[in-house]
């Protein structure tokens, strides 16, 4: 009996070794280990055996043989699966460098990129983002900013005037805003202090386009009005901005200057790690007349304002040496960034 069992087992194992596909392993499984398999058939012969011991030994031998066959089937299945996968992978070989698709992503304008970086930075410093119209009244653009009619500083803005006149209004009092400062006035008039805003936006001057000037360009301006705001807060905010935007190894300084809408006024410069300076923008303590124009009592509140160009930040960051390039709308330019 034992011999028969071993012969059947060896035959089955031999058959398994010959199997050549995972499907064939599946088909062979019931044939070699099922009820109708040769090994299972041998169980019927157990009854014919004489002694209990013989029955027991033969029964155990059959079970062991079945287990061995099952193990062999599993091993063969794993082996064949791996071989099939390897063969498939081998036939699917690709040269990935053949596949250079046309660029699919769009490119945000450089000005937008700088604009959003600046917004995000000031949001982190606790500022909200304010906006206003680009066509403005003379009052918002000049008068409320301490530049009454005939004020000589007006001449420095090279203002573009419009033929638009509101019903019943004066012609010549509507213009393209020359700075984002009217947003200060609108913000003050629309709400109550404390005010912590930056106003990025498009501004207009009657400038001939060249490498560093465009008649249409972009500025960002900050305004803080709160109780107890001093010039030290202004200097500290400029410094915080400097380190956040340019890097911790950059520093800033304020240098006396003159603007009609702030006093004391300053220009602010950024010092590079090599000691050289970049003249960046203007700033100062909001002039009491401007606070009054905004409906704010200068004895109760104080504040500061600052502003600088966005376009130049983009130019410096990306090494663009001609401002006009940024507004060429040449896709070969846009795609670079």
């Amino acid at each position: 009996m034992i011999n028969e069992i071993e012969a059947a087992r060896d035959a089955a194992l031999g058959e398994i070794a010959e199997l050549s596909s995972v499907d064939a392993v599946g088909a062979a499984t019931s044939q070699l280990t099922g009820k109708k398999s040769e090994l299972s058939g041998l169980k019927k012969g157990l009854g014919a055996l004489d002694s209990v011991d013989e029955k027991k030994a033969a029964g155990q031998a059959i079970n062991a043989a079945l287990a061995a066959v099952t193990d062999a089937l599993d091993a063969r299945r794993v082996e064949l699966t791996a071989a099939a996968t390897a063969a498939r992978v081998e036939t699917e070989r690709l040269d990935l460098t053949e596949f250079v698709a046309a660029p699919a992503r769009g490119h945000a304008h450089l000005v937008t990129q700088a604009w959003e970086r600046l917004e995000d930075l000031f949001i982190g410093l606790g500022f909200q983002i304010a906006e206003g119209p680009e066509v403005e009244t003379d009052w918002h653009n000049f008068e409320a900013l301490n530049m009454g009619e005939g004020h000589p500083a007006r001449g420095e803005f090279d203002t573009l005037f419009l033929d638009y006149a509101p019903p019943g209004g004066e012609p010549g009092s509507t213009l393209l805003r020359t700075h984002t400062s009217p947003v200060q006035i609108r913000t003050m008039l629309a709400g109550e202090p404390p005010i912590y805003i930056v106003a990025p936006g498009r501004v207009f001057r009657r400038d001939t386009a060249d490498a560093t000037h465009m008649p249409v360009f972009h500025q960002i301006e900050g305004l803080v009005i709160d109780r107890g705001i001093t010039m030290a807060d202004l200097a500290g905010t400029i410094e915080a901005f400097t380190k956040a935007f340019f890097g911790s190894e950059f520093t800033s300084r304020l240098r006396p200057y003159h603007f009609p809408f702030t006093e004391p006024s300053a220009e602010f410069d950024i010092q590079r790690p090599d000691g050289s300076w970049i003249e960046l923008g203007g700033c100062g303590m909001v002039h009491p007349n401007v606070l009054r124009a905004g409906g704010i009592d200068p004895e109760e509140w104080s504040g500061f304002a600052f502003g600088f160009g966005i376009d130049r930040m983009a130019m410096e960051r990306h090494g663009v040496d001609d401002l006009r390039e940024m507004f060429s709308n040449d896709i070969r330019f846009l795609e670079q960034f």
Partner: protein
Amino acid sequence: MDVLLSWLNDYGDFGDPADPEAVARVCDALTALGMEVASVDVVGQTVDGVVTARVLRLEQHPDAAKVQRVYVDAGDGVERHVWCGAFNMSVGDIVPLATLGTEMPNGMTIERRGILGIDSEGMLCSASELGLGDDHSGIYVLPSDAPLGIAYGDALGLTLDALIDIEIIRNRPDTLGYVGIARDLAPALGVGFRPPTPPLPATGPERTASVELVDGDRCARFTSTVMSGITVAPSADWMARRLLAAGMRPISNVVDVSNYVMLELNQPNHAYDLDTLGGGGFRVRLGSEGEQLTTLDGELRTFTADDLFICDADDVPIGVGGIMGGLDSEISDATTTVALEMAWFEPYGVARTVSRTNLRSEASTRFERGVDPYGMPLAIARFAELLTETCPDLVVHGGALDARTDDLPAEQRSTEVRIGAVNRVLGTTLVADDLAGLLDPIGFTVTGDGDTRTVAIPSWRPDSAEEIDVVEEVARHYGYERIGKRVPNSVVHGSLSAHQQRRRLARQVLLGLGVSEAMPNPFLAPDTQARAGLGGEVITITNPLVAEESVLRTSLRPGLLDAIAYNESHRRTGVALFEIGHVYPPGEGELPDEFESLTVVLAGSDAPAAIRVWRELAAALGVGARIDQGRVPAGLHATRSATLQVGKDAVGAVGEIAPDVLDAFGVDERVAVLEVDLDRLLGRPEKPAQWKPTSRYPSSDLDLAFVVGDEFTAERVEKAIRQGAGALLVGLSLFDVYRGERVPESTRSLAYRLRLQAPDRNLTDADVADVRRGVEAVTTKLGVELRS
């Protein structure tokens, strides 16, 4: 303003001009005071080895026409021969000789070099070769009394000096004069301030040049002083050199003193020849419309009734008030007696004439910013003192006139300054007693006691009037850099508004769809609106730089179409661009109906591409709109475009650019377009997508095709399917549109795939049949045939 440090040192010991560290200290202090130093040039440098030499003989060599042989004596009695390419010198002239071995500023070393086998023992130098100016036309001829063999710099009295270019701030006219700069700088460097103190001129016999102020609001003070005993001659070298350094050509002693006093004291002035001054006096009046005068620069100019003339007593214009004299007002070599004008002109008036006529001068720059209305007596005395150096017989006559009007700014102006207000603005902890120490040295006189002091404002500071103006002076002289830096504790939370966040989202969606952002010029040419097929009124710039940029856009389309044409012309087709920007249609309000538009143009794509962009954008922004093909906006393709409607509002348009517009912009490709009014679209409340549970049960697909007339929109079919299918419909797509033989003419077959699913059970065949029947019931009612 160019400031020569050696000259500035007349008014205080600011620093040795030859010591770079001292110069740097001066420059840093100037910048910290708001007198920003733009550049510093070292001047007066000389070239070692270049000495004075006298020309002994000049010879022409027969074989060398372009050069001559010059024999010179450099003081050692040895005759040296040099070749020279210039011919401007004569025998006896003293000229600079670069001796052998001299290293010239341009890097060349003077060597014994021969022409035609004859050596040259040095080189004669031009002004430009010695760094003395631009003149390289000939050899620089030195003063004839110079000793031979000495350094040419010594012969010229050259010393090392620093020429400091200061950017003058508009509100600080006092710093347009050396004395004003020195006054501000002295306390910052801790040195004494030495203003000029000319003696009061001894007055000679009475002699008067009359003054009549007709339009005294424009000229509120006019002094006339007669001086005689003048011999017109060149100025002393020191004065000529200083004026040259300041960029002014020395002319004669009288003109040079006039300019010198202006540069020193910031008091422009004009000396007229009294013997040729009509009527022997002055009349100051406004011009009449069209009145003409030839100004000193030789131009015949026409003036208006808002321009101020200085006339002679016979009412003949001889100058434009505060700006420039007339051509005939110049003194001549024969002048012996002058009437000296020193006046104060109203700044805005001067500025108006300057901007109207584009005529500007050193004088107008000063008057339009504001000259000291009380500086004339000092300036007159200084003028006399300086002119006496070259005219020892100068007589300053008695009978000088000082005409003033009520329009002259008050001499005594003061303001109360609260130390609390100073500290509140600056964040300093100053006490009231600190004010005098900071302000007195610059002429702001502090009086009184307690926390509020009275500060008298000097007459040379027209910019200063109120407490806050004085606070700025305190800040400057305390030092901006000492004020400290602290970050305010913002009590608001920094954030973007919902509108701003959604604008950024819109941009991100477009970028993800492969569209790049353009920023075209918002100014259009007058015919661009028409070329773009856009009607409606426009706003025009009244003072445009060029007519091609004089109209404010009412749509972003023209700029983007130009951009596409530009890219096509550079062989870049298929460009996809968007812009988010303001447009400015006129309106009825205080301001135009300006709004923010978002426009997408897809070159080489047709309308469905624009629809796809719109659907993505709308889904991301949580907005929706009806595509109304019954209304096509102007400039768009009439049969491939639609208005985007929300209720009764048109919020935008989608489709393609009209073919004639493409032609007008020179665009070769089709252009799909989407434009939306972002203000309106984002102004609507956002509807956040609401969660629908996803079913765990299997889904089943049902394909249905309908034959509909071309005029019957897919949107209506889709609506009918949704209505008929009921709650089991979880997905619907139009997967095929067929036109051709198998359907009647002017119709098409629309094939939809319906994905059906129940939330709580497996679908049965009966469910699917029910849906089919339901859809058919609705579509049949619409007259739409379900294809089997």
